[in-house]
């Protein structure tokens, strides 16, 4: 209670330094798993008892939640990075791979974590790495170890060290929060009594663009996460919304109504150089840049119903992408630009779907009914989105093949508008 009161006092002053109270933690529930999970043995790291929590527990949690791995029991005994594990034995117990590691104190504050990954079938080392950290970085270090294991065993970069942004609404209070991809360590970037929507990560992960209604109308801001400094990107007469970063982080696509209806423009990140890139007699909105910079995908009802379109950033080469159904919105290209996730109305249900851009084949991925705001993980393997369970907003994630499903919820609050951040640089 004391902590709460303290936070309230800060709020009144107007400068909130305190991070979030623990009750706002995202809790993750897994409701599906991959068909062919890789069995992996993660031994306890030698010396990890000296840390506030075990690094190997973080690694196990990450790999398990991904839905792509099954964990083979290794027993209570720690296996150091220099130990020679009995790989044949772990092979017999079902493990395809085995991780061993050591935590060594370098001085009073610094630790070194060394680890080694083995292929139990070929009885060969797949790789080894040493990371240095302070005791409080045990979770971040565990995520980096898990990223290493994930990449060695799947060929794709792991996303355990990435962050997600989302908006929590509790009562009449809106908070734009940033958390680790596992929901831990939530921090509030912006607190407001007016709605906040459409957060978008800058490609380098240092900033968020978003729409805030604090001026009684939608205005687009850029917010630097390290400093909390904000600047206005678009505050023209009418509504300003739907920011999307160009891959080089220098421009944003935005939707403005200054010249009439909701239309697409690009603008420099400092708010200068506004340029209209498309014009229609209807609504154009929800732009998203492809990672190669060649397309801006968007939603338009120029054909009578909301459908998916794309246009080159210079306004040329406009194409309609979706043709089936009467409501297809929020197109978001995959990091490899081969597919598109979006929300489609299917009967009365709004569901996350994925379209293969070469074949234009559409697959509905979810079994929820009120899906919104899908965004790809930076390795393209998962799609994070918002939905509703029991009348409350929750975040959910689904693998791009639809097999792995996760729910992320915050106790007694609505969570919405998720955006998956980029890989750390």
């Amino acid at each position, binding site marked *: 209670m004391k902590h709460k009161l303290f936070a309230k006092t800060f709020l009144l002053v*107007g*400068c*909130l*330094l305190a*991070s979030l109270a623990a009750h706002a933690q995202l809790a993750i529930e897994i409701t599906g798993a991959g068909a062919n999970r890789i069995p992996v043995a993660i031994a306890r790291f030698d010396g990890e008892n000296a840390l506030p929590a075990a690094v190997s527990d973080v690694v196990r949690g990450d790999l398990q939640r991904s839905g792509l791995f099954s964990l083979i029991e290794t027993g209570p005994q720690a296996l150091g990075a220099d130990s020679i594990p009995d790989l044949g034995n772990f092979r017999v117990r079902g493990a395809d791979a085995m991780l061993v590691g050591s935590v060594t104190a370098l001085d009073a504050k610094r630790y070194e974590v060394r680890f080694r990954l083995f292929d139990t079938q070929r009885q060969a080392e797949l790789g080894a790495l040493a990371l240095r950290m302070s005791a409080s970085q045990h979770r971040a270090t565990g995520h980096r170890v898990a990223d290493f294991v994930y990449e060695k065993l799947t060929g794709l970069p792991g996303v355990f060290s990435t962050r997600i942004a989302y908006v929590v609404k509790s009562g009449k209070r809106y908070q734009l929060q940033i958390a680790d991809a596992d929901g831990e360590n939530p*921090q509030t*970037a*912006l*607190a*407001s*009594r*007016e*709605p906040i*929507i*459409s957060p978008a990560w800058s490609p380098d992960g240092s900033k968020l663009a978003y729409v*805030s*209604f*604090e*001026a*009684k*109308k*939608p*205005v687009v801001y850029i*917010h630097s996460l*390290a*400093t*909390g*400094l*904000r*600047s*206005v990107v*678009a*505050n*023209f*007469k*009418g*509504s300003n*919304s*739907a920011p999307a970063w160009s891959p080089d982080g220098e421009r944003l696509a935005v*939707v403005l*109504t200054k010249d*009439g*209806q*909701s239309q697409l423009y690009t603008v420099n990140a400092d*708010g*200068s150089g506004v340029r209209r890139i498309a014009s229609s007699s209807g*609504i154009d*909105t*929800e732009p998203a840049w492809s990672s190669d910079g060649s397309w801006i995908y968007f*939603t338009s009802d120029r054909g009578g119903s*909301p459908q998916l379109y794309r246009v080159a950033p210079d306004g040329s080469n406009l194409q309609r992408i979706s043709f089936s159904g009467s*409501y297809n*919105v*929020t197109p978001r290209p995959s990091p490899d630009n081969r597919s598109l996730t979006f929300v489609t109305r299917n009967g009365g249900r*709004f569901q996350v779907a994925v379209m293969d851009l070469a074949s234009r084949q559409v697959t509905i991925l979810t079994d929820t009914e009120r899906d*919104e*705001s899908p965004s790809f993980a930076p390795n393209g393997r998962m799609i994070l989105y918002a939905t509703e369970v029991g*009348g409350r907003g929750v975040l959910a994630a689904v693998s791009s093949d639809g097999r792995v499903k996760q729910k992320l919820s915050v106790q007694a609050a609505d969570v*919405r*508008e998720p955006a998956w951040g980029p890989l750390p640089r």
Partner: protein
Amino acid sequence: MRKLLVVPALISALLAGCGSTPMSSDQAGASVEDRNATTTVQTPPVQTVTPGDGGNASRLAELTNPASPLSKRSVYFDFDSFVLRPEFQPLVEVHARFLLANPDVRMLIQGNADERGSREYNLALGQKRSDALRRGLTLLGVPEDQIESVSLGEEKPRCVDSSEECWAENRRADMLYSGEF
């Protein structure tokens, strides 16, 4: 929008000690800066129109007098429709007359949409409603620069149940006058 400029200034004032710098651009509103990891937006209290300028005060008092048609500020729309229903034409005319008689008074129209579907698409649908109401006023001679039409999309529902009655209540455009936004 003269009044809107006050908002960032107030926020800066409330964030005293956090610092603020103006932004040079053709856009409305200044940038807000503070040097903490968490930025807190303090919504300024609703500004009240200050009496003291004789006739003006009593004219503006009409806006909130429940007996005056000017106190009615909401226009409702049919599902998937952005056309002003004829039953609201008299109300639009009353407000147009008021704006024409009071060229120093400005209006902010906030359009709204029901909660189904994409938030950004619903923001655009709310904009179509506020634009329809703005056109209804400008057709009666109200100058464009006296009115700003914006959208709140599905973000500020007046009614929060998932029912047809509720959704109808939220398919709405509201008229706010100087001092109310």
